[in-house]
């Protein structure tokens, strides 16, 4: 049996995201629903999350009305489906500092946050560049950085330097430097606790938006295709993709892209009464399913 229960919890969605956002170069190939989700991990007597979503108060209305993002529900509502509260969460791994992954840190008053040092230091570097380079930090919310100050002062920010094994038992962090962002990281969960595990899951963050990033759009000739946006390097995104798939032993379905609606068909899932989906990646011994 698994050490951890793992769920992808949808907290908002974009009903019609262009496919080209999710798969580089796939222009004029229609649209797909694009969920926004974070990952809840429960086991070894602790609650952890991968990413925390965005700050609805400051710009939720803008996202809804101008960018077609709908259905946002607070962590209180979303996590209640798992019978937990945001204040119960003890550990949060931030895959990167974009607003829709690291924007809602205030909602988790008791959590320690784990972020790659490179992500933070390069954001600071980008902010100091000439205005001509503003694209490099235009999608960063200065308010998120200000919130990180509080975390650092409270001793709740752990700055990770590269790869780190067993940040929690069986959970490793892997740096995908200079890919989607400078310090993006993915989370490897060795769910049998073994160093040479037969039951590995990877939470991809924004290193992949879709399973199509792993197989391409041509079923007859599969290949990696990066996501639509890399702030740094598409090449590094492809190598990060390869590393993630190798980490799980080759079955790409074990690399979980929270932005892909297909997660809800690959894994057992259900739609809650708020219209948001919960996908159950793994269920630990003694835990109750959230989807059956």
């Amino acid at each position: 049996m698994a050490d951890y229960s793992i769920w992808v919890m949808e907290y908002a969605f974009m009903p019609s995201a262009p496919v080209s956002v999710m798969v580089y170069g796939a222009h004029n190939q229609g649209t797909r629903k694009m969920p926004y989700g974070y990952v809840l991990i429960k086991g070894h007597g602790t609650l952890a999350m991968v990413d925390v979503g965005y700050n609805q108060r400051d710009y939720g209305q803008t996202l809804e009305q101008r960018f077609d993002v709908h259905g946002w529900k607070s962590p209180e509502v979303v996590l209640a489906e798992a019978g937990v509260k945001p204040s119960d969460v003890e550990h949060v791994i931030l895959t990167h500092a974009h607003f829709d992954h690291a924007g809602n840190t205030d909602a988790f008053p008791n959590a320690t946050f784990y972020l790659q040092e490179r992500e933070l230091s390069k954001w600071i570097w980008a902010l100091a560049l000439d205005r001509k380079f503003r694209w490099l930090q235009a999608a960063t919310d200065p308010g998120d950085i200000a919130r990180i100050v509080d975390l650092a002062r409270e001793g709740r920010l752990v700055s990770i330097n590269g790869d780190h094994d067993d940040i929690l038992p069986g959970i490793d962090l892997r740096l995908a430097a200079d890919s989607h962002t400078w310090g993006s990281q993915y989370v490897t969960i060795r769910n049998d606790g073994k160093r040479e595990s037969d039951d590995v899951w990877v939470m991809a963050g924004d290193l992949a938006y879709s399973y199509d990033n792993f197989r391409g759009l041509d079923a007859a000739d599969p290949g990696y295709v990066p996501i639509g946006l890399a702030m740094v390097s598409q090449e590094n995104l492809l190598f990060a993709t390869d590393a993630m798939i190798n980490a799980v032993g080759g079955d790409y379905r074990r690399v979980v892209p929270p932005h892909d609606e297909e997660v809800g068909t690959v894994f057992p899932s259900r739609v809650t009464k708020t219209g948001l989906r919960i996908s159950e990646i793994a269920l630990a011994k003694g835990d109750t399913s959230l989807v059956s």
Partner: protein
Amino acid sequence: MNNRDITRLSVRRIEERAPNIPLFCVPEAPTESLLPAGETLLDDATLSYVVAAQPAFDLLRQAAGQLAALLVLAAAGGRSAQDNPAFALACAERAKAGDLIGALPTARKGRHHHRHLRACNDALTAACAEAAVNLNRDDQRALALLREGLRQLHFAAAALPGFEVVAFGQSCCAAHASMATISRGKANG
């Protein structure tokens, strides 16, 4: 086509395609930030103000981000945050923004935006002054002032179109989905 023309066309496009959707969000802004119903934003004076104010807004946003970053460095134990060139840069950008704000053209419909822009500038000025003395002493005042500046920046962004604290159109997940009411772009597939 100059910036004013581009802005005018953008605003007209928004109003024509989605007249019922307000052009701004007002998460906490006072109610007087909303224009009276039926008022158009297309007058020349307002457009001139928007075009002139955008550089000042961008400089304040930049300065706020840099100050926040320096506070993170200081909070993480960096002993030389005050000596970091980014600190001087942040203060210089704030000062440049202040000069631009002082020279902005008057526009009736821009008054509320201008008020918040000035308030942001005042808060960041105080934040810079506080940080120059106390950046490495874990003093909360610089952070509190920065937060007030950011709050005013959000209010300013909500008061008129053409100002964004976060450029969602360049972000990971909102990329290419901008102005959903203008162009759904639902191709086959």
